[in-house]
């Protein structure tokens, strides 16, 4: 691997890590979304070092062009409520999560770093041109070898679109009434249960 590749790896990898940290650590969701954009662009660059040109393009198109935009759009829709105020509750749990996640990350990456593998010859077409990671190569792979999964994925996307509409659409007043009623019922039920529990506790106590 050439030095340029090495540099590109260092830069893009570093930016990806920075972007990821920015994503998870930002208080404001909009900043997180911007950091996620950075992360995604850095990964696209990283894919170039791995001979995944088409994938790098798709990464930019789908992630940066669609998903991040969707995030931003929702953040805009929700407005100030998109920001969750800090809550001192559950600090220990969060700490524990950090420790566990961090240690997993550390051990796995430590175990992996420095390992090399031989580079095998890349896929070529009939004309002898290198098609690994190109549109041609990927096209053959997707539309010939993985045609059925591809069609299934398109179906899944369709289902997801319809599902998203069904979940997110605003309710009619009648439906809203039902929801409110259910909520009231649930609250009532919980209250009754609490009362029962209190009674039982009192009985045991006396």
């Amino acid at each position, binding site marked *: 691997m050439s030095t340029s590749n090495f540099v590109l790896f260092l830069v893009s990898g570093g930016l990806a890590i920075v972007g*990821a940290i920015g994503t*998870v650590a930002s208080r404001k969701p909009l900043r997180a979304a911007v950091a996620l954009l950075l992360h995604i662009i850095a990964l696209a660059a990283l894919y170039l070092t791995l001979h995944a040109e*088409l994938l790098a393009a798709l990464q930019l198109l789908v992630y940066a062009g669609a*998903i991040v935009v969707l*995030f931003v759009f929702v953040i805009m829709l929700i407005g100030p409520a998109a920001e969750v105020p800090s809550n001192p509750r559950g600090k220990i749990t969060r700490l524990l999560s950090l420790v566990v996640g961090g240690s997993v990350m550390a051990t796995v990456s430590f175990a992996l770093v420095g*390992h090399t593998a031989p580079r095998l010859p890349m896929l070529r077409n009939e004309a002898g041109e290198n098609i690994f990671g190109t549109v041609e190569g990927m096209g053959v792979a997707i539309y010939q070898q993985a045609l059925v999964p591809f069609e299934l994925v398109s179906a899944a996307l369709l289902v997801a679109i319809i599902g998203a509409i069904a*979940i997110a659409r605003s309710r009619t007043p009648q439906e809203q009434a039902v929801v409110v009623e259910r909520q009231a019922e649930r609250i009532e039920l919980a209250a009754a249960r609490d009362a029962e529990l209190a009674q039982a506790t009192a009985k045991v106590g006396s």
Partner: protein
Amino acid sequence: MDVGIGEYLALASILFGIGAMGFLTRRNFLIQLMSIEVMLNSVNVMLVAFNRYQPSNHDGQVFAFFVIAIAAAEAAVGLAIVISLFRLQKSVETDLPSALKH
């Protein structure tokens, strides 16, 4: 100085760890969704990296392609849930909704 598969995999696992920690520690539904995206991306890095060292086919890249597609679907449904949740409780905090429990 050379970059081997190990470095790529280590980078991927670091990214996965960051995403996982974000998912576990944050209580903002939006940020948790973004953390999931980070985790999915880290898996993609791993898949593409493996494919680079076994370049006689496109299995890893095709898989990564599908992951991207599914991630898009996941983001769409996840954000729809965010909106729905926001309608219900006027907040996107994930500590609050435990109604599914019962």
